[in-house]
């Protein structure tokens, strides 16, 4: 987008005067922001429907299927319902902070979309510090959640907010350390630069580049679950312990904002993993037309992201919640040391094989395929043995 704007300016489309250039530029920026907003918000909402359907299948239920085809418009109905509800601000709450908190959380979920590399051209701003920007703005969530917990003036909310702060701040460390192996290998922080350093075929994804990268990708995935308050790390809003955690006192649209941000953040963190380790939008060069190529790349990126999102839904449908001390010890005793080893190991690896090691990549790919095959076999085994009829058909 930036490049395109520069090109227009070089051609003199806006004339030589700086004021029209600024007006055009800001107009285009606002238009882009609106488009992104229009993609991001419905995405986060539609994911609620997908998650409820997936979850229902896991639990041998049917899930929402009344509003629209197969219940597809359920998200719209839920949104309308929440808007129509009374917006309650508790008398004892701090009204300013209480109102501000949901906006901060939504902000933290909207901002990363600015550097989201959807395809080779579809990126709003290919910042040279893209991945750093991404981790920085997603961390804003914790400010909003802590603010919500504090401003509600409710003890359950406060515990939820403090839990969230402890959890997100702790898991930022292994998550950040798991980003750096890729940065070491590519020497760039730009999202497009990282994507372009990988190939379309899995053997040239960073996931399989070395054993250290493999471990780092898994740590990044688990840490992203923790940062988004997803099961098994959904302690800040632990329903059975803290009523609804930091969101206990919220109602109406403000309540919805928190959960929209949670579902949207699933997409954001999955996008980080896909860009860093799973080849991003890379697709074989099959068509000379840039539009066709961009569409194919866009589809590739989104499918990869949705697979990761699906896995996180699956985990949510399967696992119980860990206790806070177990969560902390998992982070500090296991993830942080392993992430450091990964970082140092990758540094050594890059020093020995600056251009990568194809043999290692193919071996890691083979290991990955074997693991996946073992997993699929296990799932199929249990699915066959299950006595219950499984509703796999998507349109019941």
């Amino acid at each position, binding site marked *: 987008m930036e490049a395109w704007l520069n090109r227009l300016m070089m051609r003199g489309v806006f004339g030589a005067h700086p004021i029209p250039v600024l007006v055009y530029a800001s107009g285009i920026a606002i238009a882009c922001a609106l488009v992104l907003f229009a993609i991001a918000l419905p995405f986060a909402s539609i994911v609620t429907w997908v998650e409820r359907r997936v979850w229902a299948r896991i639990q041998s239920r049917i899930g929402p299927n009344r509003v629209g085809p197969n219940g597809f418009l359920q998200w719209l109905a839920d949104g309308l319902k929440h808007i129509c509800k009374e917006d309650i601000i508790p008398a004892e709450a701090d009204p300013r902070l209480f109102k501000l908190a949901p906006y901060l959380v939504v902000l933290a979920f909207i901002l990363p979309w600015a550097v989201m590399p959807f395809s080779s051209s579809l990126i709003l701003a290919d910042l040279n510090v893209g991945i750093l920007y991404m981790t920085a703005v997603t961390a804003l969530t914790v400010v909003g959640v802590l603010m919500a917990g504090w401003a509600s003036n409710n*003890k359950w909310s406060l515990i939820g907010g403090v839990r969230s702060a402890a959890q997100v701040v702790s898991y930022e460390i292994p998550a950040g350390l798991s980003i750096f192996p890729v940065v070491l290998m590519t020497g760039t922080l730009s999202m497009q630069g990282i994507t372009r350093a990988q190939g379309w075929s899995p053997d040239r994804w960073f996931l399989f580049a070395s054993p250290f990268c493999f471990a780092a990708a898994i740590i990044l995935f688990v840490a992203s679950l923790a940062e988004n308050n997803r099961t098994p790390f959904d302690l800040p809003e632990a329903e059975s312990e803290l009523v609804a955690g930091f969101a206990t006192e919220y109602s109406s649209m403000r309540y919805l904002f928190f959960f929209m941000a949670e579902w949207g953040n699933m997409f954001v963190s999955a996008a980080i993993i896909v860009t860093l380790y799973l080849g991003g939008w890379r697709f074989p060069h099959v068509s000379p037309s840039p539009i066709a190529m961009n569409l194919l790349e866009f589809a590739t990126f989104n499918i990869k992201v949705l697979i990761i999102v699906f896995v996180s839904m699956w985990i949510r449908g399967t696992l119980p919640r860990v206790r806070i001390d177990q969560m902390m010890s998992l982070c500090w005793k296991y993830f942080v040391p392993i992430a450091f080893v990964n970082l140092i190991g990758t540094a050594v690896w890059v020093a020995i094989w600056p251009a990568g090691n194809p043999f290692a990549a193919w071996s890691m790919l083979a290991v990955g395929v074997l693991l996946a095959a073992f997993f699929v076999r296990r799932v199929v085994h249990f699915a066959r043995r299950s006595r219950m009829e499984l509703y796999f058909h998507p349109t019941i």
Partner: protein
Amino acid sequence: MSMLRTEEMTLNMGPQHPSTHGVLRFVIRTDGEVMREAIPDVGYLHRSIEKIAEKVGYHGFMPYTDRVDYVCAMFTNQAWGMACEKLAGVEVPRRGEYCRVIAAEFNRIASHLLTVGLMGMDIGAMTPFVHALREREMINDLIEELCGARLTFNYMRIGGVAWDLPPGWRDKALAYLDHLEPIVNEFNALFSYNKICIERLAKVAAIGPADAIDYNLVGPNLRAAGVNWDVRRDLPYSVYPEFDFEIPLGSGEWGAIGDAMDRYMMRIRELTQSARILRQALTQIPDGPVLAKVVRNFKPAAGECQVRVESARGDQGWYVVSDGTSYPWRVHVRTGSFAAMGMIQKLSRGLMIADLVVLIASLDVIAPEIDR
């Protein structure tokens, strides 16, 4: 650190709280996430059921017994029936006794399924809960065919049961038992042996045998502590002596004996044992009437009696005093949940807030049974 002023936080958990299994209230003194103490406050579900018995007469009280413990109402039905029969010396026909045992054991499975499912929900896993309820629904369907109700059954009468097994019901019940046993293994694979589940439950709030006896724990909670006591075997009633079954005991194989994991696994193991009793009962059931002749104006001779049944929540004692009129003079029920609530204050010291939820779920406390 001593410069920092810290203070205890008093939290009010309940009576409206998602994981208190009804209307319970705890006043929790916490230091951050660690509890100093949780003080249970009971009485929110007190409905004077014992007093109602003095006003509605012997036959009329049967539906009220359902409300003592609505999760396993067959046992309270049975206990009330047994108490009245003991007072008046009524002999229950053998087929009636078999029907009672079959209904009660199905109800035990349903109740334990709810308990293990709720344990899943209380530690944050929704799927085991829904799966357990799915199985429980099938039992509810069976019992609905038997007596027309799914929760508050009112199936038993003084002198037997209200209705005989419907035609074809026996085969359906046996088919369900065939279905249940693989499901228990599936449930274990999904939830019980999950690493996170074991980490969450093991070594939490362990109760030793001495403590369990001192605090009057009963049923699965007592047996999880390693005390070998089951009313069905040790004070046999009904036709239980005719069946061959085992009493599972807490082994402490996940850490400490009588911890939350032991109590949880006790329910899982009792599912299989109940299925075993049911199989024998369904194959051995004799023909004959199911209800003895009992006069409508039931007036037992003056006297008192106590009966004990092994309900899903343990040894349930019913004490009935008759003064020779058609209304009981006094009825008292002694339930397992009330005793378990008494122990929570002691066990809660030093646990985390998340563990309190596990503790309540593992003791299988049902709010209506505490207050009656």
